[in-house]
């Protein structure tokens, strides 16, 4: 297995999701899910809407603070969406998202903004309900920390900033492979010292 620590500003990898600025679309329901600095993208997409009040009246905004502590919940709440919910964390907002998805119909537009962890987990939930991925827009904002699945024990470590890092489940030293699964909503972590146990390169901060 090749151990190649790609600089964080390297060109996007092939399995990594493509992100672009959110654009307002016509829809019966606007389901907006954001964390951290993603709130700024939400404010901007609403500012671009032809009929802002119409979009807000059919919008459901679900928000969590970012892993770096950024909390723009009050600003989002002030927009006046038909429904607004601030969760303390991503895991805490997922049950509500599942409930909303169980009632959502074709024609719903999905807007995801914030960290890759938030975007990936929300997208996985949305796709599991059978919505086409063309109905899902994604804009990456804020922290670049990664959600990484250990390929050995299958445990997911949240908010990985350094490479290599220690798996929070099995304790193996993992490097973050540039390989991303939408279904699992995580990058792949692979044992870095498997061939030479104990020889672990110094950890560097690659994701902030």
């Amino acid at each position: 297995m090749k151990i190649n620590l790609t600089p964080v500003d390297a060109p996007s990898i092939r399995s990594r999701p493509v992100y672009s600025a959110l654009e307002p679309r016509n829809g019966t329901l606007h389901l907006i899910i954001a964390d951290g600095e993603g709130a700024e993208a939400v404010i901007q997409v609403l500012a671009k809407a032809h009929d802002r009040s119409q979009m807000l009246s059919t919008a459901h905004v679900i928000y969590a603070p970012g892993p770096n502590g950024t909390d723009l919940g009050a600003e989002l709440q002030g927009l006046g969406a038909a429904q607004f919910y601030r969760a303390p964390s991503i895991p805490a907002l997922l049950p509500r998202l599942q409930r909303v998805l169980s009632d959502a119909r074709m024609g719903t537009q999905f807007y995801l903004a914030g960290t890759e962890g938030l975007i990936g987990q929300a997208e996985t939930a949305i796709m599991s309900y059978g919505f086409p991925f063309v109905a899902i827009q994604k804009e990456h904002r804020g922290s670049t920390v990664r959600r990484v699945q250990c390929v050995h024990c299958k445990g997911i470590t949240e908010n990985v900033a350094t490479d290599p890092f220690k798996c929070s489940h099995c304790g193996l030293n993992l490097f973050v492979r540039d390989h991303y699964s939408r279904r699992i909503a995580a990058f792949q972590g692979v044992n870095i010292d498997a061939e030479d146990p104990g020889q672990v390169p110094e950890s560097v901060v690659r994701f902030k």
Partner: protein
Amino acid sequence: MSLDFKPGAFNDFFRNETFREDFTYRNSPAAIQRFPFPFDRDDYMYSVNMEPHVPGRKGSVFEHLLDVDEHYVSEMIDRARVLAEDPLRCQSLPHMTLAGWDTLELVMEAKARDYPQWFSLKKTGDRWHWINRPLGIEQSFTFLDEATLPCGPFEYIMRQTQGDWTLQDERDNTLWMDAGIATSQADWSADFDIGMNFHEWHAPVPLAHEKGIFDRALKFLLKLQHGAPVRRFNWTMTVNPLLDTSPENYPKWGPTKTSLTQGNLGGKQHLRVELQTLYRLPRSNAIAFDIRCYLGKFEELVTMPKWGRRLHRVVRDIHPDLAAYKGFLRNREAMVEWLSHYDDGLPTTPGWWPED
């Protein structure tokens, strides 16, 4: 589901051997003679290198649609052990059940047709009766009725079929790996890759994206027609005859890469050849991808003088990024040193057959 291997499964043809612990796997002289040596020239670089999967030379691995060889029974025992240890190695997303039935039909019909001494398939309408003599399996079931099999159709037939298989659904002008089994894989995780599209699961491969290999390969595959399967070779290197070189178990097998010496290299170092075949499936329109693994010890391969010369030159001259990706950069020099004793510098003839 576990296989109940009846005594007598190993006869004069099927070898009783292991792919773990004491590693008793080896090729008989006849199996060496028919080994699918993948290099048709003295150097190697990626190419799409696809050709029609049509019957080839008698006795070769191309003779039949699916090759059943002397390792069949032992490989299926190894597969059952891997699946018992880690059920995530075989997965099928809910919409892939029909493709699983297509695959079951493909395998049963091919084996019953080409190896009637071992396999039998009788159909009475939707009632099918399948006999797999080497594995001691006899099963009556209703085609397309999952409840009549002990597990899903894909897993059922994969437990009786050599090679790792993936099933690709076609949507949005690409292929989605939505089912798969991996117990004899060259370091890729089915569990991680299932649900990905064609470009996503190939993302970690170096050099090939820039060469446009995957764009062209995908275009080619989307045109694949039922009844016209295609094939290509791929290859890598493996220390010990370990079929299950999974990323999941990498901490267990990774350290064996440091165990090579000039004294043991010929017996421990294996050329791992993948005969990859692709089939368009009739009902689901999915594409089945069979990655069949053949392991050959260096000391077995060099008994064919042409292969000894050529393997030395390929390993010596390969792009270091490819050697790194294939996981043998650290042992490359040792391999070249060992192989150099079987390369007298004479020219080799084109093509991969040993005697031409």
